[in-house]
């Protein structure tokens, strides 16, 4: 390096300079809107009225949260024996595993919290003469959780099986990998259109097959028992690709020597998958599961376009409710309060992912 030139930036200065474009964009398009959302959630804020008169909003503190999540005469008790019982069993199980030292500290805490939430949350109910202020909010949350609960295992298991099956260096497998990934590049409008046609009881592929087999076609999208399943199926098909690619990457990290050694011990096929592949993929599986949970809590298009939340609200999900409250009903404050609630849920899972990511291999 030449001497005497002092105009070079120090390492720290150049770091800030290089980071600046990102930080500015991040602050402008993520941090600012986020805090503004919280600010709006503390107001009675009509979308249209405020557009014409910026003063047409009232600060009401936490009233929006109360109106959305709470009610009159809300009591707590063992009113949902199934879920609460499950929670109690979970708590006991956690204690047992902790005693016998079979769980890491993190897993103990996670399992404990989930079980505790299962015991506590379903116990709230309106008492004598009471009611929820918003009768749709908690059922909507439950639908969203059900959707996530069905979709995430669906995506994970099918992507894992596909990846294991296609983890070979042949041309046919290359083509198949591309085919399975293709659905991922479609937009939600295209995906829902394809599946609406598939599910149509009159011209759909599924109905045609059912008829050939001698059955009566199911009205997938308007039948209470099948509507949620229908949007889950469409979603699994749609989001297989990324999970599959992640699993393929994970599979290629597993050294072939381990398989050779296992083969000598007579562990092939399904046994090798169970004893070699799965344990080595543990971190990838956790990553995929957490990413999918965060992603699918934001489900909107499938419910909005395929079932319009119906029948009878059985596929109404949180983001769609936020959208309706904000735009159809113009109640931006209330919608923002729900959005903050959704943020808390997704934030919790991000924290979990962060902790797992830092956890050392045992």
């Amino acid at each position: 390096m030449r001497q005497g030139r002092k105009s070079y930036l120090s390492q720290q200065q150049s770091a800030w300079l290089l980071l600046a474009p990102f930080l500015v964009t991040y602050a402008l398009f993520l941090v600012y809107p986020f805090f503004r959302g919280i600010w709006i959630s503390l107001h009675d804020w009509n979308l249209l009225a405020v557009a014409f008169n910026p003063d047409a909003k009232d600060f009401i503190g936490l009233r929006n949260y109360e109106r959305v999540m709470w009610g009159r005469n809300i009591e707590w008790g063992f009113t949902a024996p199934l879920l609460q019982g499950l929670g109690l069993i979970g708590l006991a199980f956690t204690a047992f595993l902790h005693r016998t030292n079979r769980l890491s500290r993190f897993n103990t805490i996670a399992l404990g919290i989930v079980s505790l939430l299962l015991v506590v949350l379903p116990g709230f109910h309106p008492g004598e003469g009471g009611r929820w202020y918003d009768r749709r909010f908690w059922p909507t949350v439950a639908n969203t959780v059900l959707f996530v609960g069905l979709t995430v295992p669906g995506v994970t298991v099918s992507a894992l099986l596909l990846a294991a099956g296609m983890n070979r260096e042949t041309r046919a497998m290359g083509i198949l990998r591309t085919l399975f990934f293709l659905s991922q590049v479609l937009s939600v409008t295209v995906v829902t259109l394809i599946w609406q046609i598939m599910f149509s009881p009159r011209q759909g592929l599924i109905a045609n097959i059912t008829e050939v087999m001698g059955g009566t076609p199911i009205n997938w999208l308007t039948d209470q028992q099948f509507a949620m399943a229908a949007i889950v199926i469409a979603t699994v098909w749609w989001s297989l690709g990324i999970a599959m690619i992640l699993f393929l990457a994970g599979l290629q990290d597993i050294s072939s020597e381990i398989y050779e050694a296992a083969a000598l011990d007579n562990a092939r096929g399904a046994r090798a998958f169970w004893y070699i592949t799965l344990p080595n993929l543990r971190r990838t599986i956790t990553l995929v599961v957490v990413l999918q949970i965060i992603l699918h809590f934001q489900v909107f298009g499938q419910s909005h376009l395929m079932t319009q939340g119906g029948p009878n609200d059985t596929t109404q999900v949180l983001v769609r409710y936020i959208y309706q409250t904000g735009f159809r009903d113009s109640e931006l404050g209330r919608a923002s309060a729900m959005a903050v609630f959704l943020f808390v849920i997704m934030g919790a899972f991000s924290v979990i992912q962060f902790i797992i990511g830092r956890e050392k291999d045992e």
Partner: protein
Amino acid sequence: MKHVLLTAAAAASFASAAPAQEVTLARFFGACEDAGTDTTTSVGEPCIIQSIINAASAEIDGVTVNTLPTDWGNYYDQVKAAFAGGTPPDVFVMHRHRIPEFAGLGALAEISGDLEAAGIDPADWSENALEAVSYEGGIYGVPMDFHANLWHVNMDLMAEAGLVENGEPILPSSPEELMEHAQMVKDATGQDYLAADFAQFPIGVRLVLALMWQQDSNIFSEDGTATINTEAGANAVTAITQLFDAGLANPQLNYADSQQAFLNGEAAVLVNGTWVVDFYAAEAAKEEVGLDNYYAADFPTLFDTGATWADSHMWALPSTIDGETRAAAMKVLAFINDHNIDWARTGHMAVRNSVVESDAYQSLPHRDEYAETAAIAKDTPPSERYGAIQDVLNRELQAIWLTGKPVEAALSDAELEVQDLLDR
């Protein structure tokens, strides 16, 4: 398409001296790719309206119209978002039922002073049409139509069941008779009597509303008290559910499927709006379509007073518009107003007296078959929460016929929620 391009090119070259004023226009009704500029031959809502808009763009000097996406599902959400973002369309279509919400917040331009200069004569509008666009003494739009629910009838199925007299369908006059007719159709043809979208789009809601109005009852009063869990409400709902329970109608069909069932000849009656009369007439004329003999009937009176759900389409300007854009937008409204007869071809009822009285209007296909509809047209009291209220009713009614929720429970839940909305 070539024609449109040529016209557009010609318009562009003429306009190069004085730049054309661009008017952005938002509408629903759906897309029509090759609408052209011939307003007299297009078929169906999307193509008729787009041909009128294309013609306006081509024929009005110094004005080009830019049509925004035309999807119906999220139309009002998009318009609201555009308003909130400060970029509302210069001209947009809306329903009369939205006026309290939009005009109440000062979103709509009051245009009574612009009409004459633009060449629109409000005196030619029927009394109801003027009322439809009026709000607290001002005029907030140019009316385009009245639309209402009809009973679209497959005359061949009705004839097989012995339900045709003098070339007209015999329609029920009581809930009991509705059951009898439905059974007759089932016995004679094996097909369903009635189809409608009971599963998604609120056609089922509009049906129940009409049956409540026919008992001189309503879902809420002008002073904001919900009155849904009533005897009239239960009567209206059971008049329909009796058909489902007896297997004479299928509640699980959505809009497209119920329409397809009717066109395939699998249902004797389809409950749907005036907006499909010309489309069904055109379909019935096709060889390959199951429906051959089509009739558009007034919504029958099953209780005491005639009533059918109705609404009105109208064109409005945002309150922020002024100057040359406002003048150009008014020219577009005037052009649409001048083509009221073309729009009426869809099956909608015209709003201008001069059009209603014209031979061209009265000789439109099937027009005489539902001549009574204008007299029985009705809607709920005005409310800023119309959309949310419809949604509550749609949900609870679907719960009754799709998930077996008891009528009483659903109606009382609906009443609670509508009251919540009215109180907010």
